[in-house]
């Protein structure tokens, strides 16, 4: 209980600081939301009207107070560029990005974990060296480059999907899945490489431990030892990495969404920033901060379940 209370207060503090920093940053960086929206053709009457509407004539403190007051009531304001409530914009895109993240995560796990086991097992043999090379390359590949490559290969050459199109799952489940699959793979490849690297080392560390010998000597088969004992212990450092990966993807796979023209969080954030759409960016920053905090919390709790010796404090 005390743990939760302390955690909550630090969460609130973090969120508060994040909003203040975003506010100040937006005040400092050059750029003007009005010009970004209306372009260079607007006459002075139009500019004035929008300035008033956005309350840009008010001092910073007043604007922040207004904003935080509304935000506490759950109202994140209206996007300047899109004239839509920020909450709606984020919610719609959240659906897309979270699906993308889920698929990417599943791919990462179902390929990453077995691959690590194989690599660890055949450490010095051909397979092990092969996967080591793969993971080295995989980590070095920037995912946007992979994305462009895949758009060419699967989109233009093999015609598995049509670049520039996106079909929501609600409309057509199979196609929707198909349109998320390729970007998910592009996201997953570097992540798989990271997972393999960490998990392989962890497994190899564990394999040399005494308890493994004990497990063998009590007659367990090799895969039983692996799943019941080694993997369980080896997963601890990997959970941390996984937490980071999820936060990373959910916080917006900025570039991949841009490359595959997927209407997710990442693309919205880029639009928001380049248009100096303050309410939108502020809303999204809060949202991303919340996700990162929540996942860290989750990771803490999972530690406890995997290894009860770790206390929550």
């Amino acid at each position, binding site marked *: 209980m005390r743990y939760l209370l302390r955690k909550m207060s630090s969460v609130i503090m973090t969120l508060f600081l994040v909003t203040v920093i975003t506010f100040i940053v937006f005040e400092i960086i050059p750029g003007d939301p009005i010009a970004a929206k209306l372009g260079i053709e607007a006459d002075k*009457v*139009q500019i004035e009207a929008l300035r008033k509407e956005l309350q840009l004539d008010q001092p910073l403190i007043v604007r922040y107070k207004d904003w935080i007051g509304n935000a506490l009531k759950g109202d994140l304001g209206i996007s300047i560029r899109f004239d839509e409530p920020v909450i709606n914009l984020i919610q719609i895109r959240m659906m897309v990005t979270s699906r993308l993240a889920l698929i990417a995560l599943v791919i990462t796990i179902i390929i990453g974990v077995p691959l690590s086991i194989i690599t660890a097992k055949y450490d010095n043999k051909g397979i092990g060296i092969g996967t080591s090379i793969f993971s080295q390359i995989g980590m070095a590949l920037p995912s946007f480059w992979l994305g462009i490559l895949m758009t*060419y290969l699967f989109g*233009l050459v093999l015609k598995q999907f049509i*670049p*520039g*199109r996106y079909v929501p799952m609600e409309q057509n489940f199979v196609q929707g899945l198909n349109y998320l699959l390729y970007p998910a793979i592009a996201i997953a490849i570097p992540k798989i490489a990271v997972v393999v690297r960490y998990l392989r080392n962890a497994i190899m560390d564990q394999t040399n431990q005494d308890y493994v010998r004990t497990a063998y000597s009590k007659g367990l088969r090799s895969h039983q030892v692996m799943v019941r004992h080694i993997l369980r212990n080896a997963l601890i450092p990997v959970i941390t990495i996984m937490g980071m990966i999820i936060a990373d993807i959910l916080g917006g796979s900025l570039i991949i969404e*841009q490359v595959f023209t997927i209407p997710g969080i990442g693309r919205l954030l880029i639009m928001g920033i380049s248009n100096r759409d303050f309410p939108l960016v502020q809303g999204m920053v809060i949202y991303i901060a919340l996700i990162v905090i929540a996942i860290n919390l989750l990771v803490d709790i999972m530690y406890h379940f995997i290894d009860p010796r770790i206390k929550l404090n």
Partner: protein
Amino acid sequence: MKRNVLGSLMVLLLVCVLAGCGTEQKNDTNSDITNQNQTQSENTNEQSTNEEIMAKQDKVVVAVPQDPDYLDPHLSAASGTTEIMFNVFEGLLKADPSGRVIPAIAKDYTISNDGLTYTFKLQQGIHFHNGKEVTMEDVAYSYKRLKGDITGEPLSEAFEEVEINVVDDETIAFQLTEVNSGFLVNFTKAVIPSGLGEEAHNKTPIGTGPYKFKGYNPSQNIVLEKFDDYRIEGIPKINEVEFRIFADSQSAFMSLLAGEVDMYPRMETENIEMLPENYYYVEGMQNMVQLMSMNNATEPLNDVKVRQAINYAIDTDFIIEAVANGKGTKLGSNMSPVMSFFYEDGLQDKYNINIEKAKHLLKDAGYEKGFELTITVPSNYDLHVKTAEVIVEQLKAVDIQASIELVEWGIWLDRVYKGRDYETTIIGLTGKLDPNNILFRYETNYPRNYMNYSNEQYDTIIAQAVKTTNEEERARLYKEAQVLLADEVPAVYIMDPNFIVALKSNLKGYQLYPLYVQDMSVMYFD
């Protein structure tokens, strides 16, 4: 040179990729297309089975670069929005492809002899997209709303000082306080239905144009649907138009390669060679002025000799060849030849490259050893960035050490356009229907005179032209203004880059305008 090699390699790669598609597609796409419930046009080399689909195609996808600023036509100011909503809204008047304004909702109009009163007769029997007939009440509401009479907030500078009188059910009169020969174009502002509330126009816009608004998904698309009751019989022809928003030109072109985009306006010239067989393109002048603006208030650019020297040192012919593959029209002042009636011919050759003269002028101005110069360029405009690269090289011949500063578009707007904090910048100024709206940006007191140009004589000419109702006399004055700009060169006028639109081979009827619009109503599938 390195770049060229790399470029040709890329082209080669792409050609290979494309060649791959050509053969692949034959057996593949059929099943694919039928799966998707959207109709799609095919490679021309795909015969028989697809002809049926082609004949039935009634939806066109147009690639556009940005989201609309407002759907409400009276709030909107961005030309990227007009480009789309031109199909949805009409005013009393409307622009035609030659750039003249012709009656739309109005039957006809008269201008009083003193040039102060504009009287319009309403065309009867025109309907809004919601089925309601357009009445005088709606017309009055629309223009009063712009003036600010409805909400107390004016929405357009143009109508602020105008008195609006409804004479009878068919007649409305607009009374100006002073003569403004360029005023007529303001009547192209949209007529919208009254009585729907102020917010509605931005959510579900309703107009009288050939297409009605169907939906808008932020950062994805705007969908328009054929308006069956349009005032002109047989128009429009295509049922549905989707304007799909592509944040970068790369993915727009990629989507075109995949056959997903039917129409791609403002395609880069380097993509022409890569256009698939089942596409063609239309090109023409677009009434744009690409220029290297100089900040006339900073040293040494405040010296006319320095500005002239820079003009002599820059070879615009070469720029047109190098960065636009020759697809551009050389300019000598701030006016494109597409404005034929107002255009002063001959100025484009005034500053043909002459390094000797440039050096001489720089010596006279006291800059024999040259100086350093920064060219601030918005990084999202490839054409301008490449132009800047060429100019940097060219200026070396007269010892001017130019460097390029790439800035994000939002920063360009804020710092250069609004803040006027720059030395030189390269940008394209989009054309207007009326020469006044093109040339008044050099007026001393114009709020967005970002070049800080100031010349009493120029101000007088522009003020005089606005008060002149005789068209010939007006044209003479605007030509005089162009000559003055060419003498004083507040900027280096480069070119009107050709507007290139790529179209699927079965999509016909594209109409070029000297305006930033896509007229979908006259297009059809063949």
